[in-house]
């Protein structure tokens, strides 16, 4: 179980300090599927980066199974079982998809074992396994490879920052299946930052973060009706695609 207690975070600007997160507390119970939603710029991504250890809160505590991990860095948290998918996946010259999946798995996974993860995210494994994770891959391909690396980690806690961003309609449907399957197989907790109604639809619990605060939380059944039609629950329809184009 992951527990955040009174987490606050601020950045120092040229003339003042800006509060990004204000006194956020919540628990991510074992084997739960939780979605954090809310308007852009509300602090959701910062919260995900704080859980991964990339940013450190100015106050508050983070507990993993009762152990205080607030002072631990990215590597230590990863080794304790926290996995994090970047909103904008990172590209590497020379590092292949196979290299990355093997690093994620933490073992010299067989090629067919690594291909399995690519197939799960809807990529034709033999076309991608030896490709470099560089600028030749599209944003959507990068996003799927990023998700495959998180799957390969088999971590107890997986955090995804807007996994749907940049993904086309076909792979978006596939993405939902990927999350459902991960949830079934790993029996870990999944925390997703998303605005998408379809992702909210498969959550056990929904949290709304706005203006740096946790403003609402509850089970999907009670939360979803209150969010429909707002920015926090966009439907992935043609109008949405047009808006993005």
């Amino acid at each position, binding site marked *: 179980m992951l527990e955040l207690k009174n987490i606050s975070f601020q950045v120092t600007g040229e003339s003042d300090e800006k509060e990004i997160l204000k006194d956020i507390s919540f628990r991510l119970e074992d084997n739960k599927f939780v979605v954090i939603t809310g308007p852009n710029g509300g602090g959701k991504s910062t919260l995900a980066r704080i859980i991964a250890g990339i940013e450190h809160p100015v106050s508050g505590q983070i507990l993993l199974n009762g152990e205080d991990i607030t002072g631990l860095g*990215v590597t230590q948290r990863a080794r304790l079982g926290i996995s994090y998918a970047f909103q904008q996946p990172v590209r590497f010259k020379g590092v292949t998809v196979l290299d990355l999946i093997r690093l994620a798995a*933490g073992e010299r996974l067989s090629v067919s074992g690594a291909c399995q993860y690519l197939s799960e995210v809807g990529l034709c494994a033999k076309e991608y396994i030896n490709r470099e994770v560089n600028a030749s891959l599209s944003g959507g391909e990068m996003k799927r490879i990023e998700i495959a690396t998180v799957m390969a980690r088999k971590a107890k806690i997986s955090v995804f920052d807007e996994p749907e961003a940049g993904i086309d309609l076909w792979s978006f449907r596939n993405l939902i299946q990927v999350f459902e399957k991960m949830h079934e197989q790993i029996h870990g907790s999944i925390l997703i930052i998303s605005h998408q109604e379809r992702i909210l639809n498969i959550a056990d619990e929904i949290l709304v973060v706005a203006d740096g605060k946790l403003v609402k939380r509850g089970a999907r059944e009670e939360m979803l009706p209150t969010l429909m039609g707002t920015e926090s629950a966009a439907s992935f329809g043609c109008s949405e695609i047009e808006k993005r184009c």
Partner: protein
Amino acid sequence: MDAIQRELLEAVSGLHEIPVGAVNIRTNGKSEVRKSTEHILIENREEGDGIKVVIQPGTKKESVHMPVLLSQSGLEEVVCNDFYIGEDSDVTIIAGCGIHNGGDANSRHDGVHRFFVGKNARLKYVEKHYGSGDGAGERVMNPKTVIEIEEGGYMEMDTVQIKGVDSTVRTNEAVLQKGAKLVVMERLLTHGKQRAESHFNVTLQGEGSGANVISRSVARDTSTQIFISNLNGNAACSGHTECDAIIMGDAKIQAEPGLSANHPDAALIHEAAIGKIAGEQIIKLMTLGLTEEEAEEQIISGFLK
């Protein structure tokens, strides 16, 4: 061959034993092993130190191994080797130079390799440079490569220097005739106070000739690298040169890709990029459980792969 020489041999050529096929192993200034084959003749040059390798026309899928090993501190040598690649042949030449310097005097190998690639011949040339030994004497290598590719010929040159060479100036000159192609991949890592200079001067003389000269390098500590590449397009041709470098510590890198188009249909491109490892790359690998140092090593080894 002693243990140090065997280690050098493995580092520069990946060989544990004397390989099959044509071979010439030069140890401390002398030819220790020499073997010609039915289609590949290795003999001394008529003038000066060095050898002549003659590949008969039509020779296919054969290789020549020719490592140079220096384990005697203070030895300085200049060797000139000529390679005649016969028409329509398809061969691989694996050269390499390993210097172990356990003494205080400088050890130096200056090698000049001249390649004459015949019509429609294909050559893959691999060279690896390596230094070891903790003596105060420097390990110096100054390889010069001169290439002439006849009509329709193709040469791929893969040059690697990853460790232990204190000072190197490598000079590469090439002239390409009609339809000839040249692909060069240089991979270089310098550390400590090392200094490495690479000069490429490629002349695209014939119609339809093409060259692609790529350098990927990492400069660490207080090392210095200079990369100068010039493509001269004298006909309807295509050329691309690229220098991509990672800079670390207090290293210095200078990249000067240059193009000269002397024909209206010469299509030439250059690219050069120097930068630190992106912080996000390190963080991504750390989220997979690697330490910062492990992440850095992984990024460098991938980049130089």
